[in-house]
């Protein structure tokens, strides 16, 4: 298939439009000099990614992205930013030119790694059955059946991270403070 053929299908225009929006907003996430703006551009990036998943008929993944990342993770980001400091104007300190070479190396190697593994795994395979989303029963059966071990391991790691997070965040009270707490 030539590029002209590929471009003649309207669905690929949608793909290009969403992809361009994702890349542009991802670029703004790192270049924006306002923390809240950066977080909001991240919302746009994630929404676009959810759109790309929808185009591949991966409904469940797309809406999980919306529920977990936009609805919870970004909300917690914004919550954390706003509860500590949320300047309305730009913060020049956010732009850190010294870190750019290192950041370039890290992001390039991540890109190469992901591109290589995806190409190795899928090559030029085409998605079959685009337009009919996988029903939840099939998805659940493969998750609890064939992929049950990775699923459980991920659950275990997340639990460990949760316990670790609580341990770090929670400071034990001194006896004096505990007395005050009790008196209230």
């Amino acid at each position: 298939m030539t590029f002209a053929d590929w471009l003649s299908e309207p669905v690929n225009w949608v793909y290009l439009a969403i992809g361009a929006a994702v890349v542009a907003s991802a670029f703004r996430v790192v270049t924006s000099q306002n923390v809240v703006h950066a977080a909001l551009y991240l919302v746009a990036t994630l929404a676009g990614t959810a759109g790309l998943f929808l185009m591949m008929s991966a409904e469940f993944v797309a809406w999980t992205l919306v529920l977990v990342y936009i609805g919870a993770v970004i909300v917690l980001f914004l919550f954390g930013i706003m509860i500590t400091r949320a300047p309305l104007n730009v913060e020049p300190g956010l732009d850190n030119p010294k870190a750019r070479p290192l950041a370039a190396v890290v992001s390039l190697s991540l890109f190469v790694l992901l591109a290589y593994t995806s190409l190795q795994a899928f090559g030029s395979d085409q998605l079959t059955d685009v337009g009919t989303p996988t029903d939840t029963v099939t998805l659940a059966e493969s998750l609890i059946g064939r992929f049950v071990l990775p699923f459980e391991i991920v659950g275990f790691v997340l639990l460990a991270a949760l316990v670790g997070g609580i341990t770090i965040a929670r400071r034990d009270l001194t006896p004096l403070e505990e007395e005050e707490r009790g008196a209230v």
Partner: protein
Amino acid sequence: MEALLDNFWVVLLGKVVIIATLIPVAGLAVGFAELKLSAKMQNRVGPYFAGGRWGWAQLLADGIKFFQKEDLIPEDADEPVFKFAPALVLLGTVALFVVVPFGPGLIVQDLDIGIFYALAISSVSTIGVLMAGWSSANKYSLIGGLRAAGQLIAYELPLVLATVGVVVMAGTMSLDGIVQAQAGWFSETGWTGGMPFVIPQLIGFGIFFIAALAELTRTPFDMPIAESELVMGYLTEYSGFRFLFFFLAEFSNMFTLSAIAATLFLGGYWAPFVPDDVLQWAGPIILIAKVAVLVFIIIWFRWTFPRLREDQLQTLAWKFLIPLALLNIVATAILKVVI
């Protein structure tokens, strides 16, 4: 006609137009009910003059008034974020209508993951609320936005967990499928009356209803816009049609969340012993009647319960509702396997 109805774009346009008219109508109806019922509960008359009878045109007049107002943006505000926030809040509400079944086949799009989609898309509004609170450059707005976000995060979990019980019982996440499951319950014994899930899932219904009240930031969970301490919370700086957007989002959200609660727990458009051919046309009426009861209870709550304090609100969610919802899931799952 047939050919026209087969065209995807024509059907899509039709659906968009229907939803775009339904949302203001539902919002106005709920808003008017609120005005009149509040008046009744306080022994007042309420709106009286606009429109000739019962003051039915009061909210239309209010809407026109809002449109005429100047679109004020505070000088220090972050303009693009400030302008976009109301649209995002309204989007979270409008998109909910997609999966609500109003009758057999009368649904915008019956998604296989219906309830999951509804919960995901409604969480987008939280971002809008935070954006509104932050971009207003006003400390009351910021505190209101933060309170709203803290509350919405806390109550989203019990809301999601309470629906899991229903999904386990019905064996599907499609809202239409959940209605069918309730209509067909006990059908193998020859019983045709079905069973609304509120009977086995009474605890789930209670949790869902409390969490939905909190998601709507309605009394007793209206800390984010507590007027005695925060002026109007994240809405303080908004006026004109941007305020109207928030207003419309709040009231149509009351309608949609009640519709989803009615679908999950009260049988949706189905009612016991109503034949299928009657359901074809009576479905929307049955659903709206159930929604009206729930909306009435929500308004009733407003004039019955005092506002919860912020720490009580968080304690209720994290220490009571979430553990209870988890127990409910465990019990439902065990019963599903045993019976």
